C-alpha cells in the first residue's frame, strides 16, 4: 500500500515535470480549434523532449569538463610559478606523470565547485515560485488516505530524484572526475552513485524549508525568503559557472584559502572518495558520508514531522494587510503619476518578489559578468563605448523583466482594465513610460560610477545614445511582450513565450551597433531605424489589443508602418541582389545596371505588396489615381516646385562649402557619364516606386495613428535617411512636400509629380551649377 502510494505520487510529480517541459517547448498559439488553448499532448513532443534532454546533458558535461580542466589549470601548479604556470599546467594536463591530478590543492577546488553547485541548486529550487504560492499541494495530499510519515517520505524521494538542476550539473561533474580517475565507461554510474547521498541531503534540506519552515512563516516572510533565495541561487550558479569559463576566475583562487575542514563536508567527503587511491582508502570517507547524510536526513525528517504535527496550515495562504497601518492619504508624488502608474508603484513596493525580479535580478545578471571577467572593471572605466554597451545591456535586462511583462503582470485581473473607458493601448503606454523612466536610472548610475574621465563630447554622445535607446526599447519590450503573450492561458508563468524574450534581447543587441558605430550618421540611422521598428510594432499591438481576450477573432488587416518598412527593406535588398546578378554577366555597363536593378526591384516590390494586401484583404492600400486628378496634379506640381526651389538653394549654398563641393563634383561627373540611364530613373522609375513605398505605405501607415505633421516628418526623415548624408536636407524637403501633397489629395499621382519635377530640376541644377562656377 505504502509502496503503491509512493510510486503513484512520484509518477504524478514526474508527469507534471514532463508536461511542464513539453509545454515550454511545444507551446503554440491556440488557433481557431477550440475556445481555449487546450494542452493536449502533441505528436513529437516526446522526441523533442528527448533530444533537448540529450543536448542539455551534453552541455552540462561540457561545462563540467571545462570546470575540472580550469580547476587543474589554476591549482595543479604552485602559484609562485608565475607566468610559466599556464604553459606548464597545459602540459601537465596532457601528460600527468609526475603530477597527481587529485593532489590536495586541486581537490579543494573540486570541493568548492561541487559545493557551489549544491548550494545553487538548493537555493534555485527553493527560489522558484512554488514556495510562496498560495495554493499548496500538501493541503490536497493530506486528504488522501496515506500516513503522514509516508507522505513525507515520498516527498523526500521526490525532492531527491526530481531535482533537475542538481542532477543535471552534479552528476556530469562527478562523472567527469570519475572518468579522469580512470573509471572508464562506468564513470557516469559512479557519478550518479556519488551524487545520490548529496541529492538526498539536498532533498531533505529542501523539504525542511518548503514543508517545515513554510508552515511556520507568515506568507510575507515566505515571499521575502523566496526572493532572497532566488537571488542567492542565481549568484551561486554564476559563481559555479564561472569556474568553467575561465581558469582565472577568482572563485578558483578562493580555493587556495579554503580551510582543511571542508573535507568533512559531504561534498568534501565525496571528492575524497574519488581521490582515494584504492577501494580500501575510499571506505573511510564513503562510510563517513553515508553516516553523515543518514543522521542529518533523519533529524530533518523528524523535525519536519514535528513541525507538521500541529496541522499543515498555520496561516492564511496570502499576506494579510490587516496588521498594516491604513494608507496615509495622498503623497505628493501621486500628482505626477496616472492612476495605473501609481498602482504599479504600489504593487512594486508591496510585492518584494516582483521588486527583486524586476529591479535586482538584472543587476545580478550583469554583475555576474564581472565574476567571469575580472578585467571588465578596468575596461569599463577606460573605454566609454564598452561602458555604454554595458549600461544599455543592463537597461535592456531591466526592461525585459519589467516593461516586457506589462500585460502579463495584470494576470487574471486584466478584466478590470476592460471595464474602464480608457483604451488598453493608452494604459500600456503609461506603464511603458513609467518603466522607461525607472530604467533610465540604471545606465545613469553606471555612467556616474564608472566614468572616470568626466563627461567629454564622446561620452556625452554615447550617454545620449543609451538614454534615447531606453524609451525606444521600452516600447519594443511592451510590444513584443504583448504580441508574444497569451493572456488567456491559465498558468501565469506560461503566458509569455520564451522565444519572444530572446527576440527582444536580439533586438537589444542590435542597438549596440549604434553605440559602437564610428560616425554620427550611422548612429542616427540606426537609432531612427530602431525607433521606426518600435513604432511599427506599436501599431500592430494597438490593432491587436481590442481582440486580445478573444481567442478566435483577428483585427482586420490595415496598411501600417510595418508594411512600409518591409517594402522598403525588400526594395533595397532586391536592388543589391539584382545589381549583383546583372553585373556578373559582364555585358551590362553600370548605368543600365543601376536602372534595371532599380526598376525590377521596384516593380517586384510593388506587385508583391499589392498581392499580399489583396490576400490579407487589407484596408487603406494606396492608389495612384483617384477622383479630381487635375487638382491633384496641380497640387503635386506646386509641392514639387517648392521642394525644387529649396533643393537648388541647397545646391547653391553647398557649392560654397569645400567639403561638399568635391562630393557634388563627383556626383555631376558620374551623372554626365550615365545621363541616359539616370534621367529615366530619376524622372520616371523613382517617383513611381519610391512614392508607393515612402508616401503610400510609410506615410500612410504613420498617418493612420499620428497627426499630419508627425507623420509627414517621420516619413520624410526615413526617406531622407535612405538617400545618404550629403543630400539629407534637400531630400527631407522633398519628403515633406510630397507627403503634404499626398495627404491633401489622397492619391499617389500628386507626390509622384512632385518627385519627378524635383528630380528634373535638381538634376539640371547639378549639371549646370558646377559648370557655372
Amino acid at each position, binding site marked *: 500500500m505504502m509502496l503503491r502510494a509512493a510510486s503513484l505520487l512520484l509518477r504524478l510529480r514526474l508527469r507534471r515535470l514532463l508536461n511542464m517541459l513539453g509545454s515550454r517547448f511545444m507551446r503554440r498559439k491556440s488557433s481557431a480549434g*477550440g475556445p481555449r488553448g487546450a494542452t493536449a499532448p502533441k505528436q513529437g513532443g516526446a522526441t523533442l523532449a528527448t533530444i533537448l534532454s540529450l543536448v542539455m546533458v551534453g552541455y552540462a558535461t561540457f561545462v563540467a569538463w571545462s570546470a575540472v580542466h580550469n580547476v587543474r589549470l589554476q591549482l595543479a601548479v604552485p602559484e609562485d610559478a608565475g607566468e610559466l604556470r599556464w604553459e606548464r599546467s597545459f602540459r601537465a594536463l596532457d601528460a600527468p606523470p609526475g603530477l597527481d591530478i587529485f593532489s590536495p590543492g586541486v581537490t579543494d577546488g573540486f570541493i568548492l565547485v561541487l559545493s557551489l553547485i549544491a548550494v545553487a541548486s538548493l537555493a534555485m529550487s527553493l527560489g522558484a515560485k512554488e514556495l510562496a504560492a498560495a495554493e499548496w499541494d500538501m493541503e490536497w495530499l493530506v486528504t488522501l488516505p496515506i500516513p503522514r510519515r509516508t507522505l513525507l517520505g515520498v516527498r523526500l524521494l521526490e525532492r531527491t530524484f526530481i531535482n533537475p538542476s542538481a542532477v543535471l550539473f552534479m552528476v556530469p561533474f562527478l562523472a567527469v572526475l570519475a572518468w579522469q580517475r580512470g573509471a572508464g565507461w562506468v564513470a557516469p554510474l559512479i557519478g550518479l552513485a556519488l551524487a545520490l547521498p548529496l541529492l538526498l541531503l539536498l532533498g531533505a534540506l529542501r523539504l525542511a524549508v518548503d514543508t517545515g519552515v513554510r508552515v511556520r512563516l507568515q506568507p510575507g516572510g515566505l515571499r521575502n525568503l523566496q526572493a532572497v533565495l532566488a537571488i542567492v541561487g542565481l549568484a551561486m550558479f554564476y559563481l559555479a559557472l564561472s569556474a568553467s569559463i575561465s581558469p582565472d576566475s577568482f572563485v578558483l583562487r578562493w580555493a587556495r584559502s579554503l580551510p582543511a575542514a571542508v573535507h568533512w563536508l559531504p561534498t568534501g567527503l565525496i571528492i575524497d572518495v574519488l581521490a582515494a587511491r584504492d577501494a580500501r582508502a575510499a571506505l573511510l570517507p564513503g562510510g563517513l558520508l553515508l553516516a553523515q547524510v543518514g543522521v542529518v536526513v533523519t533529524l530533518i525528517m523528524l523535525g519536519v514531522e514535528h513541525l507538521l504535527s500541529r496541522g499543515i496550515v498555520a496561516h492564511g495562504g496570502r499576506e494579510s494587510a490587516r496588521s*498594516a497601518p491604513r494608507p496615509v492619504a495622498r503623497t505628493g508624488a501621486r500628482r505626477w503619476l496616472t492612476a*495605473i502608474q501609481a*498602482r504599479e508603484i504600489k504593487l512594486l513596493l508591496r510585492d518584494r518578489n516582483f521588486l527583486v525580479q524586476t529591479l535586482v535580478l538584472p543587476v545580478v545578471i550583469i554583475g555576474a559578468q564581472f565574476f567571469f571577467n575580472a578585467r571588465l572593471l578596468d575596461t569599463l572605466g577606460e573605454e566609454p563605448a564598452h561602458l555604454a554597451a554595458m549600461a544599455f545591456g543592463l537597461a535592456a535586462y531591466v526592461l525585459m523583466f519589467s516593461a516586457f511583462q506589462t500585460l502579463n503582470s495584470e494576470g487574471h*485581473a486584466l478584466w478590470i482594465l*476592460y*471595464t*474602464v473607458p480608457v483604451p488598453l493601448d493608452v494604459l500600456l503606454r503609461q506603464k511603458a513610460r513609467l518603466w522607461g523612466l525607472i530604467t533610465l536610472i540604471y545606465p545613469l548610475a553606471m555612467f556616474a560610477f564608472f566614468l572616470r574621465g568626466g563627461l567629454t563630447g564622446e561620452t556625452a554622445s554615447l550617454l545620449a545614445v543609451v538614454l534615447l535607446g531606453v524609451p525606444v526599447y521600452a516600447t519594443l519590450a511592451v510590444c513584443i511582450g504583448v504580441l508574444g503573450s497569451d493572456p488567456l492561458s491559465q498558468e501565469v508563468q506560461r503566458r509569455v513565450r520564451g522565444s519572444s524574450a530572446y527576440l527582444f534581447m536580439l533586438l537589444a543587441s542590435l542597438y549596440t551597433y549604434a553605440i559602437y558605430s564610428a560616425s554620427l550618421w550611422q548612429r542616427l540611422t540606426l537609432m531612427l531605424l530602431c525607433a521606426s521598428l518600435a513604432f511599427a510594432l506599436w501599431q500592430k499591438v494597438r490593432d491587436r489589443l481590442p481582440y486580445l481576450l478573444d481567442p478566435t477573432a483577428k483585427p482586420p488587416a490595415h496598411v501600417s508602418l510595418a508594411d512600409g518598412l518591409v517594402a522598403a527593406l525588400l526594395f533595397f535588398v532586391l536592388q543589391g541582389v539584382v545589381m549583383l546578378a546583372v553585373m556578373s554577366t559582364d555585358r551590362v555597363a553600370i548605368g543600365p545596371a543601376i536602372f534595371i536593378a532599380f526598376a525590377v526591384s521596384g516593380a517586384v516590390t510593388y506587385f508583391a505588396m499589392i498581392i499580399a494586401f489583396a490576400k490579407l484583404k487589407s484596408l487603406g492600400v494606396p492608389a495612384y489615381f483617384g477622383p479630381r486628378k487635375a487638382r491633384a496634379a496641380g497640387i503635386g506640381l506646386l509641392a514639387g516646385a517648392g521642394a525644387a526651389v529649396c533643393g537648388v538653394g541647397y545646391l547653391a549654398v553647398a557649392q560654397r562649402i569645400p567639403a561638399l563641393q568635391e562630393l557634388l563634383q563627383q556626383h555631376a561627373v558620374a551623372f554626365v557619364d550615365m545621363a541616359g540611364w539616370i534621367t529615366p530613373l530619376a524622372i520616371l522609375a523613382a517617383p513611381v516606386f519610391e512614392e508607393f513605398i515612402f508616401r503610400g505605405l510609410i506615410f500612410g501607415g504613420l498617418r493612420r495613428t499620428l497627426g499630419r505633421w508627425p507623420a509627414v516628418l517621420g516619413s520624410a526623415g526615413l526617406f531622407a535617411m535612405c538617400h545618404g548624408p550629403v543630400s539629407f536636407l534637400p531630400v527631407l524637403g522633398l519628403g515633406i512636400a510630397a507627403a503634404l501633397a499626398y495627404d491633401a489629395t489622397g492619391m499617389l499621382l500628386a507626390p509622384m509629380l512632385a518627385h519627378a519635377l524635383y528630380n528634373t530640376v535638381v538634376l539640371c541644377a547639378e549639371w549646370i551649377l558646377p559648370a557655372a562656377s
Partner: protein
Amino acid sequence: MIAIEGLDKRYGDFHAVDNLSLAVARGEVFGFLGPNGAGKTTTIRMLMGILVPTSGRALIDGLDCHRQAADVKRRVGYLPDSPIFYDFLRGREILQFVGEMHGLTRGESSARTERLLDELGLDDAAAEYAVNYSMGMKKRLGLACALIHDPPVLILDEPTNGLDPRASRDVQDRLRAAAAEGRTILLSTHLLDMAEKLCARVGIIHKGRLVSVGPSAELKETLAHGGSLEDVFLSVTQPDEAGTGHHPA
C-alpha cells in the same frame, strides 16, 4: 438602451451565440436566463468588448460595443461571473483605482469609495488585500467597482452567485434601488426565483439561441399554462431539442 442585433459568435464549428436579437429598454431590469454553457457569459463579454462578434452587433445607448468600446464603458458598470483582483491591493485601493480610471478626481473617487464600501457592507474588509476575500466579498467588491462611476447601465454576470442568503438579499435590494434610480440592468442568472422577483422581463437562452422572451407572468401563462417559471425554463431548454419554444419576433 441595450440593443443586440443578429449577434453571432462562432468558435470553429461551435456556435456559442447564434443570431441573437434582443432589446432592453431604458430603466428596465432584464433577466438573462439559461443553463450552463448556453451563451450568457459569451453574450455579456461581447457587450463589454472583451469578445468580438463573428457577425451582428451589440449597441448600448446607440454606441457599438466593439468599435466604440471606450465610450460604451463610460456608460456601463460590469460585474464578471468570478471577479479576480490584484494581489497586494486592498479592497478600498482597488475601488479607488477603478474610480480614478473612470476619470473621477481623487477626492470624488475616495468619497464614493467610502460610500459604496459602507453600502455594500465591505467596511470591515476594506483594509484587507482583496485576494483574501471570500467569493461573496469579491462579488460585492466587483459590484462596487461596477457602481463607482454611477453608470446608467449595469451588466451583471451572476450577481448573487456565491453569496450567502443575507448578502444575496442585500445585493438584490441594492439592484432594486439602482433600478428605481432609472438604471438599465441586464443580469444573467440561473436563480429563477430571483429573476422572477427582480426582473420586469426575462429572456431564456439555450445553445446560443434565444428561445423565449417576455414578462415572466406572460411566459408562465403561455408556455407552462400557469405553471412556474421553472416549468417554463425546463420546457424550453430540453437537452436534445433546442428552440422548441417561442422565437422572438
